[in-house]
């Protein structure tokens, strides 16, 4: 990049998020006893939008060449900025929605700084170029997340979910770290490029490196809520406050995937070592994850739990982005780029869906499909937005979810993975069943009793704004899908 800016400017989005987190702590100390919900939300939203603007600007104005910093431990490229944009958008939506969700919480302030610090960790994770940075950033994401899940400390479900999440998370962190150490033992480096070189010339250490990679796959599966480390997800998403569920299932999942995308292209490229064929492993994981997530979602009675399982199903779709790679194929960038674009669209539609659940929790209408019956009569705008999210998650054509899924499956077919695309398409059809149940409940079913709708007594502005904005983005990403997919494909192709 031949410009007057120092290279450090490439870290601008990460730094903006970090400073926002610090600023939030500062705002809270100005009057620690007052409930400063509004000012916190404003600062958090402005900060994350600034980070979003900075990352978009760097993509548009930058040359596309990666910038490495701190002895190559950090590499800011288009992929890092693309994911930072996802994290920042989700953070902004969640922070705005939280303003109303925590309206009667005694101390809402810590929530905002925890969310923004977790987002900082994610942005750093997206730019990591060394296994050490990956681990540190991953912990930076995980630790605030545990607290956030258990944020309603008077609520048994929330605390229980936090505990489960923490125990599984701690275990998977340990496994991940052990995997890193084994890879280091086998290759003698933590930098991705050097690891890739070392993988190519393993002398009798293929077994050690192989076990290390398997353990790292386990860590990634935990973070992305994929089989076989998905058990925590339904519990945590259901028990957590809904804005936190939105944050974890959209942003945190994307953070897990950026690690996977980077590690399995730069550190352990396809076919670098004939002994370690992880492509098939990911293929099976993808197929099992999407099937399990979709079938489990189909039998749920509670909307939030259904969304939790649907989020596992979507992790399976995105895993195609890693599973459908083949050595030297020109279609690798396309399929991984499509997976990235799906994560971006998913960031809006899934966050929006969970925020609608947050709104229902705010009203106190109940949790099951029956409790949602007839909500459209009293809250038509929010219900329409929810219908948009549901249809888009199912992949129906008038919405952005159709294109992102289509590109993903086509990319897989072009790369010779017809079976993965077929499994994905079948699962998409199944998913239409349970997503349309929500729409049917909202619009077509009659409320259980005539007083059931009286619970809707407030119009929380922040929640409405966030939900409507997410819906508008979900619709507009259909006509505007061109730049998104082009950026994503360019970013992914640069890794091969």
């Amino acid at each position: 990049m031949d410009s007057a800016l120092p290279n450090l400017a490439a870290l601008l989005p990460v730094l903006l998020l970090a400073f926002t987190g610090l600023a939030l702590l500062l705002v809270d100390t100005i009057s620690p006893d007052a409930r400063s919900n509004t000012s916190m939300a404003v600062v958090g939203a402005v900060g994350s939008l600034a980070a979003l603007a900075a990352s978009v600007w760097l993509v548009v104005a930058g040359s596309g060449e990666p910038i490495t910093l701190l002895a190559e431990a950090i590499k800011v490229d288009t992929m890092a900025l693309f994911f930072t944009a996802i994290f920042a958008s989700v953070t902004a939506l969640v922070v705005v929605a939280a303003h109303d969700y925590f309206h009667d919480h005694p101390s809402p302030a810590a929530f905002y700084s925890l969310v923004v610090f977790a987002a900082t960790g994610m942005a750093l994770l997206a730019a990591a170029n060394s296994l050490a940075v990956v681990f540190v950033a991953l912990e930076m994401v995980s630790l605030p997340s545990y607290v956030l899940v258990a944020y309603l400390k008077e609520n048994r479900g929330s605390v229980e979910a936090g505990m489960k999440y923490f125990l599984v998370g701690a275990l998977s962190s340990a496994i991940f770290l052990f995997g890193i150490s084994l890879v280091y033992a086998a290759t003698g480096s933590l930098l991705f490029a050097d690891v890739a070189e070392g993988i190519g010339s393993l002398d009798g250490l293929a077994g050690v490196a192989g076990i290390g990679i398997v353990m790292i796959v386990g860590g990634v599966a935990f973070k992305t809520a994929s089989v076989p480390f998905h058990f925590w997800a339904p519990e945590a998403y259901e028990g957590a406050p809904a804005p936190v569920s939105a944050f974890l299932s959209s942003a945190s999942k994307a953070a897990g995937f950026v690690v996977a995308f980077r590690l399995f292209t730069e550190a352990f490229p396809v076919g670098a070592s004939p002994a370690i064929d992880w492509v098939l492993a990911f293929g099976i994981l993808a197929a099992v994850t999407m099937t399990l997530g979709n079938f489990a979602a189909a039998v749920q009675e509670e909307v939030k739990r259904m969304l939790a399982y649907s989020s596992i199903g979507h992790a399976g779709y995105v895993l195609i982005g890693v599973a459908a790679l083949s050595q030297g194929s020109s279609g690798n960038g396309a399929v991984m780029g499509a997976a990235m674009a799906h994560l971006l669209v998913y960031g809006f539609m899934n966050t929006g869906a969970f925020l609608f659940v947050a709104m229902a929790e705010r009203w106190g209408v109940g949790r099951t499909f029956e409790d949602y019956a007839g909500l459209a009569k009293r809250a038509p705008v929010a219900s329409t937005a929810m219908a948009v999210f549901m249809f888009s998650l199912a992949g129906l054509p008038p919405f952005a979810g159709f294109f992102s899924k289509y590109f993903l499956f086509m990319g897989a077919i072009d790369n010779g993975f017809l079976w993965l695309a077929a499994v994905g398409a079948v699962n998409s059809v199944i998913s239409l069943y349970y997503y349309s149940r929500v729409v049917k409940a909202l619009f077509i079913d009659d409320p259980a009793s005539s007083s059931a709708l009286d619970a809707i007594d407030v119009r929380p502005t922040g929640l409405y704004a966030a939900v409507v904005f997410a819906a508008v983005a979900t619709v507009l990403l259909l006509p505007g899908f061109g730049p998104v997919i082009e950026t994503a494909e360019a970013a992914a192709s640069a890794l091969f």
Partner: protein
Amino acid sequence: MILEALIGVTFVAALLVLLAPDAWAGRLAFVLSLLPFAGSLYLWSGFDAAGNALKGGDIAYATQVEWLEVGGRTVSWFVGLDGISLPLVVLTTFLVPLAIVSAWTPIDARQSQFYGLMLFMEANLLGVFTALDFFLWFVFWEAVLVPMYFLIGVWGGPRRKYAAIKFFVYTNAASLLMFIGFMSLTFALGDSVSSFALPEITGAIANGGLGEFFGIAGGQIALFAFLAMFLGFAVKVPIVPFHTWLPDAHVEAPTPVSVLLAGVLLKMGTYALLRFNFTMLPEQASALAVPIAAIAVISVIYGAMLALAQKDLKRIVAYSSVSSMGYVILGLIVFTEYGVGGATFQMVAHGLISGLMFMAVGVIYNATHTRMVGDMSGMADRMPIAVGILVAGAFGYMGLPLMAGFAGEFFIFVGSFAAPTLPYAPVFTALAMFGIVIVAGYLLSAMQSTLFGPFEIETDYDIGPAPFHDVAPLAVLLVAIIVLGVAPDIFFEMIRDAAVPVVEGVTVDG
């Protein structure tokens, strides 16, 4: 840019109506829906297309702007009109204002949402008939389903939930099948196309561009694609045995929704069959001519027999739509100028006539709150004008000369008698013609027992002449049907112009 304006204005109108208060949403929707109608008349007046849009003809009002790129092929915003799509665009913009007026009486809850969804559906229907890029077309095609699902599910009759979900599941499963079929075609075409534009794909297939994919020969893929798309569209049309969603949807849907469902939505299926199956893959179509013609004739006869057995007036009209669509399929498969042209003409004619029938039944239902044949008699006594128009429409259905239905069916029979590719064409034609006799049978008997004879009905409602705004759309439709029957050339000229390239080059097989 005029087509974009047409679709855009309709979208904006839908938004405005959604935001309007319930009290005058219906009036506003009617006034705004006249704008697209005026627009389509303007399009008609300046229409200068020649030939078939997919076969390299001159496309009227074409715009093509690149949208995005996938797998080396561009997806673009590509819209335009030819002699096949313009009549359907005019039909859509003509029927929607009338359907909106016919909703003023029956729709009494959540009006602004109802009319907003109607206009939203119109915008997407216009998109379906004008799009010339597969992806663009598919987006509009699916976007029609969403408002329809709500229109049936929210404002429908007692079993509306069942009907709405059945409609949604059937048509979505069909869309998926069709999508897979089309995608297999594009994969088999490989590098011989650089976009998803329908004219380019049609041209590439005609030039033998279909190659091998995953070890399957191009010819077999084309056959698979033809069958998948045919089944997908057959649900939409609907063709026996995929018709079971239609009576449920029609009976539960409120009158104005039935009007659009029968008048325009069913034509999406036949339009797509003509564009995709019969224009793109004529070889496969003529190879399968006998089974398809058999299905068409079965649809005609079986649909009519089912109608004969019904007691609900709406079910009678619904099943007779199945029968009428059978004629359209027969016209398409024979691959003659008059067959294909007549089928397209019949789409428009049937759109008007079935719209009239559903509307007239709705007007009677508004007054009596029953549609059962046995429940009433002598309605002509109390509602002379509405009943008079209903009788005229029924005669149109039976194919009375000088009405649109006669022209359409006559063209189809002329075309199908002389079919070059279809063996035993006269036999198929004769069997199909027999359907008209059954139509006359059930319509006459239903009308005789409900409309004529001594006035008798057990009801608490006071039954008098229908209000002006219920009858006016009926009269307008009847006038249109007669005009089109007297002077079919106002549409048939351009339809024939676009149908000839489809027929050319299809020769007898073996």
